């Protein structure tokens, strides 16, 4: 089975810092891939490179086997790739429906739509269904998102990504700010989304969450992938060893490391 989204040798520099130094990555349809690594290992940079928000300096990205250039978030969206960033990227003064459809509003038919009038009722119905599908507890579809709890905002951001993604979803630390119940909820969400045939990639520092929900685990260190494991065949000790550099799987890529 070929990978849905595949990256080879991605490099990205920020001034003196080499955030990505020839990183590889792949995700298949319907699988959950966890991306782990110490702080500064390049996880977030990799996600930003693959979601178009900060294109890499060099390297190749293939989508369904075809080389693609993901130069902006719009390009990623057109491919069916959605991202939930750590900061969620919601507009706090807008309500959940407006956030859900921001940039993709449903317009009224005919002349009214041409004049810029939106079909608020239909957007509201679709949002309600999307939130219900994923079990996101959004009480008031008309209230500003900024006044809602962290868990609810997370739910809205994930539901938005899930509603629009047809191929791949990236989640950057989706459980970092959440309590126990809400975390269980988000992990449940991840399973539901992948069950629908979408490739889910999530960054996490929490080993138990990674072990619980992922199919495969890719370990990053100093801007490279250093190991890939099947979750069912690995242990926490092995993962920590790979993260800290005690264990190396992909030897060929370790040249030139100090």
């Amino acid at each position, binding site marked *: 089975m070929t990978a849905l989204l595949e990256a080879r040798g991605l490099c990205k520099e920020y001034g003196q810092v080499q955030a990505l130094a020839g990183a590889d990555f792949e995700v298949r349809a319907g699988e959950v891939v966890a991306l782990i690594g110490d702080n500064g290992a390049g996880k977030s940079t990799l996600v930003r490179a693959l979601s178009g*928000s900060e294109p890499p300096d060099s390297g190749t990205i293939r989508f369904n086997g075809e080389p693609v250039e993901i130069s902006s978030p719009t390009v990623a969206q057109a491919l069916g790739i959605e991202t939930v960033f750590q900061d969620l990227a919601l507009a706090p003064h807008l309500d959940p429906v407006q956030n859900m459809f921001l940039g993709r509003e449903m317009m009224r038919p005919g002349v009214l739509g041409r004049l810029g009038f939106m079909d608020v009722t239909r957007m509201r119905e679709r949002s309600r269904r999307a939130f219900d599908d994923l079990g996101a507890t959004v009480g008031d579809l008309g209230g500003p998102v900024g006044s809602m709890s962290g868990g609810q905002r997370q739910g809205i951001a994930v539901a938005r990504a899930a509603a629009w993604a047809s191929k791949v979803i990236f989640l950057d630390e989706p459980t970092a700010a959440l309590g126990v119940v809400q975390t269980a909820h988000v992990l449940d969400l991840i399973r539901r989304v992948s069950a629908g045939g979408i490739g889910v990639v999530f960054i996490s520092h929490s080993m138990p969450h990674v072990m619980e929900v992922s199919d495969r685990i890719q370990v990053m260190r100093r801007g490279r992938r250093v190991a890939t494991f099947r979750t069912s065949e690995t242990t926490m000790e092995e993962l920590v060893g790979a993260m800290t550099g005690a264990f190396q799987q992909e030897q060929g890529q370790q040249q030139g490391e100090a």
Partner: protein
Amino acid sequence: MATTTGGGTNTVITDASRGQRLRRLQALQILVLLAVTMTVFGIARPDTFLTVFNIRGIVQNTSIYAVLGVGMTFVIITGGIDLSIGSVLVFSGVVAAKTMDAMGGQGWGTALAGAAVACCCGLGWGLFNGFMIAKAKVPALVVTLGTLSAALGFAQIITKGLDLRSAPQVLVSKVGFGNVVWQIPTLSVIAAVVVVVGIVLLHRTRFGLYTYAVGSNAEAGRRVGLDVDLHLIKVYALAGLLAGFAGILNLAFFQSTTIGGQSNTPLNVIAGVAIGGTSLFGGVGSVFGTVVGLFIPIVLQNGFVQTNVQPFWQQVVVGAVLIAVVYVDQKRRTAAQRGKSPRFSFLKGRTR
């Protein structure tokens, strides 16, 4: 999990609707303040204040500010500011007056040509503001402070500093002082149309939604593919266009280009917008609130004159109201955002 669970959901409903209620409450508070002010003056001077003649004067005096206020509301909702509108108004009026002078004639043809020229001038300045702010990333405060100076300078160069007083007869008699029917001034009807269009544009269309989105979280907009820069250019262009249009109305009303008389205009309009509940931090606001906010200074001025209070008190009271309203806004924001400190984004420029 598909069914919404009890506790958490209920809390959200109360929180959110409390937020909404507060927001409506503020618009209402300002309206109540206006009503109370008018009642007090009405009781103090029943014979002169609440007369058709006086109310007509107040409405007419607010009209040009209202046209400017619509554009300013959009700009401030994006988290920006436009200090140039007074100068753009003057510049547009001057160029329109020159054009109409050159054309000659006192009829509608000349007047409409003048209006078109004024609108184009305003649009041009607005586009320049927007481009410098959105693309060149110069802070809005600096750009519009620059165009405030430059537009007025050009107006003075063109006129050699002397006000032009040539407006076609029809413009002055029909638009400036005329009534549509009975005691309803044409000027105010034109302004009301602009206001209604502004309300619909802001609250019912995608353009309005993007205006809120840009002011609320521009980065979030960018991530979902909004062309934030283009939208900012459009918003400043709209403010410029309306300032240009106000230029021709101003010419009709005062029969003068009022070169020296508009230096306080942008600040008065900004005060009205802020009093009307539009947040200077962006993301929140309404055109309706702005119109109410613009009425308050003019009603105070009018009322103080009639009650033999020194009219200078108006400036003191407006200043106090402005600070009080923004203080309340600030309080509400910190309560709503829980710890996130508000920021004057227009002071920082848009560097991201």
